[in-house]
Each structure stands twice: as structure tokens, then as C-alpha cells.
């Protein structure tokens, strides 16, 4: 198998899992958190590129650090999420550019899927499947927790435990996402497919299936376009999903 098939396999699964998980993040206006978390991974990506190991593995410790920071800071300070994420965002980018060779900056910022190999593809597919299974199992509880902590508590759901699971899943998807779209564009992977799906859905089944399908379609189309045009895959994936969003816009309801 050549790297095209590997990159397609990674893209399909990561794009689908990101869209599916993103459908939950949209409900609590959390989707944009993936952006700053992505930026925070830049130092990890930089280390991976310099030392030549998988960027997702490099990104993972940084994104976990970011999640823990956001979780702790939000609980301790109750600062608005935007302020926290701006802080995290700037620090991530700043540290990365202290030591990232400028020639490798593009791969870190917008991703580089062209060199996908068997081991990292297997890792991406397995981790994406694990996210989808975990999200599917916890979906009702996570949705309820997102809608209202009190409603969830009245149902006997341990809200803090599920919050932590939720943040952990976000961390994993961001670490995977940086592989295909880089550190700058991860928010798009989780935010755009569910936003497009929401425009055309009447119920939650259509919404989650739609978000997953649009995530997969964007990733596959972006990677195919990359093979045809030579433009980097990450930006193409994001632009395809943005185009799909625009197509769904006429169907959006006002409310």
C-alpha cells in the first residue's frame, strides 16, 4: 500500500470521529476550544518534527496539559473560557516558534499527511474508533450534562466525571487532528461538520450521522484534491467542509 491509502484511511477516521465528537462540543459552545488546544500542541509538533517521530504523539502531552489547565483554571477562577484559551493559544504558538526550524513550520501549522505510514495510520484509526465508541456509549449523558448540569445531577449522573471524559476525548481528537490539518486548523475539524449538519437536521440522529458523514467527506475530498493539485491537504480539507457548510446555509432555520 502506498501513502495515499494510508493518508485516506487516517483522514476518513479522524475526520469522522472529529465530526461526531464535534456534534457534542457545539452544544456547549466548546467547539472553539479545539482551536487554542491545537495551537498549544505546536511545541509538541515542533519537537516531533525536529526529532522525527509521529506528530500526534508529540502533540498529545501538550494537549493533555492544555485540557488540565483549562479544567483547573475554569474551576478555580471561573474566568471566561475565551480569556483562558487566548492565554493558552498565545503561549503555545510563542513557545513553538522559539525552536521550530522555519522550513518545517508549514507542516506544523497546516499539517502534512503525505508521509503517512502503516504504524501511525493504525494508531490514528484505532484511536478514532475508540473515540467513536466512547462518544456513542456516553452520548446521552454527555448531551444532558452539556444542556444542564442540574438536569444531569438530578438524573444521578456524575457530571464532573463525564466532564473529564469529555475533555479527554477532545484532547485525543485534537492530537489526531493536528496530523491531518496541523496545529492552526483543528477547530475547523470539530466545528464545521456539525455546524453544517445542524442546518439540515430535524433530530439528533440526522445531526450526528450528518456531522460524521460531512467530516469523512471533507477529509477524503481534501486529500484527493491534494493529490490532484499539490496544495497542502489540511487547508483543502477545511475549505471543503466550509464549502459544504455554505451549501447547507439556505436550509438553516432562524432559531
Amino acid at each position, binding site marked *: 500500500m502506498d501513502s495515499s491509502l494510508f493518508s485516506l484511511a487516517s483522514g476518513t477516521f479522524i475526520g469522522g470521529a472529529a465530526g461526531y465528537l464535534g*456534534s457534542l462540543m*457545539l*452544544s*456547549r*459552545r466548546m467547539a472553539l476550544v479545539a482551536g487554542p488546544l491545537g495551537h498549544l500542541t505546536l511545541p509538541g509538533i515542533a519537537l516531533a518534527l525536529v526529532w522525527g517521530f509521529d506528530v500526534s504523539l508529540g502533540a498529545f502531552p501538550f494537549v493533555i496539559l492544555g485540557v488540565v489547565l483549562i479544567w483547573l483554571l475554569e474551576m478555580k477562577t*471561573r474566568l471566561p473560557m475565551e480569556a483562558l484559551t487566548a492565554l493558552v493559544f498565545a503561549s503555545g504558538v510563542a513557545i513553538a516558534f522559539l525552536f521550530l526550524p522555519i522550513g518545517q513550520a508549514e507542516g506544523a501549522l497546516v499539517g502534512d499527511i503525505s508521509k503517512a505510514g502503516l504504524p501511525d495510520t493504525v494508531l490514528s484509526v484505532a484511536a478514532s474508533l475508540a473515540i467513536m465508541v466512547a462518544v456513542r456509549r456516553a452520548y*446521552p449523558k454527555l*448531551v*444532558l450534562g*452539556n*444542556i*444542564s*448540569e*442540574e*438536569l444531569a*445531577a*438530578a*438524573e444521578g449522573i456524575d*457530571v464532573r466525571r463525564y466532564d473529564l471524559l469529555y475533555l479527554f476525548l477532545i484532547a485525543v481528537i485534537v492530537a489526531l487532528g493536528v496530523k491531518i490539518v496541523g496545529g492552526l486548523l483543528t477547530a475547523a475539524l470539530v466545528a464545521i461538520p456539525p455546524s453544517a449538519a*445542524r442546518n439540515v*437536521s*430535524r*433530530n*439528533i*440522529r*440526522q*445531526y450526528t450521522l450528518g456531522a460524521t458523514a460531512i467530516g469523512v467527506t471533507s477529509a477524503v475530498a481534501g486529500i484527493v484534491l491534494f493529490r490532484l493539485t499539490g496544495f497542502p491537504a489540511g487547508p483543502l480539507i477545511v475549505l471543503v467542509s466550509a464549502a459544504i457548510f455554505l451549501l447547507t446555509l439556505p436550509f438553516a*432555520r432562524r*432559531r
Partner: protein
Amino acid sequence: MAHDDEPVLQVSDLEVTLEGRVVLTDLSFTVRRGEILTILGPNGAGKTVLLRALLGTVPHQGTITWKKGTRIGYVPQRLPYIRNIPLSVADFFALKKGAGPDVGGMLRTVGLGAELSKNRIGDLSSGQFQRVLIAWALAGDPEVLLFDEPTTGVDIGGEETVYALLARLHRERNLTMLIVTHDLAVVHRLSSTVLCLNRQPICQGPPISTLTPENLRRLYGPEVKFYEHRHP
């Protein structure tokens, strides 16, 4: 209505501090089975915080003891995030464990049509939405209903008001209810006991003997005018 003597809920010396401000202090009360307790107070009195403390979602000092195994239904005042996802009414009920598949039946209990189950939550009127929330809370067959600020029921020809609905539910199911409100009519029409709250308890007891002009003045401040509610 006979009350069992065993308390469903016992609160003693409750204190809640949020962001360094004491929002509730020195609060103790007991709720028995079948009782309707209204919690009356001005805006910012800590009424919603009290409900959240009872549900365990805000840190507190003092003790809150629910009778073991008590099933609680909670009707929130609003759910700002729910319109962000395309949930149908049936989807919303599917999130509740023990709700069962008969969404239409649950909607009929609160005076809504079964056909509403396919509608998107975001497309409901605020009156329909409040009834859906009540039906949702009732779906798990709770023993206790916590209700945050029922919107003042407007009588539309032939429709049961939310108060009448609550009174009927209380009659039919012997539900224990804690209702947060700033509406004196709700207190008088529904409750067996009222707890007047303004960060600390101001008065407590049966509405008729408790809601004296003097106590209401202490609760709302001297500038507020009100009239005494008299039963025929």
C-alpha cells in the same frame, strides 16, 4: 393529604459561598412526604442556588440529607444551551433513563398533544417548552419535584394553567414539591409551607400565618406594596 412523618429532605445550617460571596447562610428546614414547600424571595435571594445545592452541583457547608433512594425530578427555569443542538422532543426524552418509549403519553399528562414529540425543541413556544420540561421531570416517576420559577400561567380558554397542573399532579401522585417563586399567588394557592428567603431565612411556616405584612416587608424591603390574600 396525609404526610408520612419521615422527612424526605433535611437541611441543616446550609451555607453556600460563591466567588467569595456568601449567597446563602444559616438555612435549616425539613420537607416531609407529600408536602409542597414554596421558596419565596426577591431576585438574587439565592433561591436557584438553593435548588442547585440540593442537587449537589454547588459546593456547600452544612448538611443536606435526602431520604435514601429518593427519585428527584427537576424543572429548570430555562435551558439556554438546549437550542444549540437539533433535538426533537422524543430525542430529549430518550436522554432520560427510565423514561420508557411512550413519549406521547407523557406529553398528554401535561396537557400537550402526542404529535408534538416529533417537533424540534427549538420550535416550541415557551409555554409548550415548560410543559415538556415538566413531563420530562415526571417521566422517571419521581417522588420529589424541584421546580424553579414556574412562569405565571396565563389562562388561555380551556387550558389548564401550570398551577392547576401542579395541583392535579400533587393530588394524583402525592408528589412532594419544592417550588421556587416570587409569585405570592403560587404560594397561597399551592403550598402547605412557605420558606421566605433572602440569603438567609426570613420566615417559615404555613402561608396564611407566615406571610404577614411585617414579614413581607422584611423580605422585600419597606417600599414594596402588597395586599393580603384572603381565602373565602
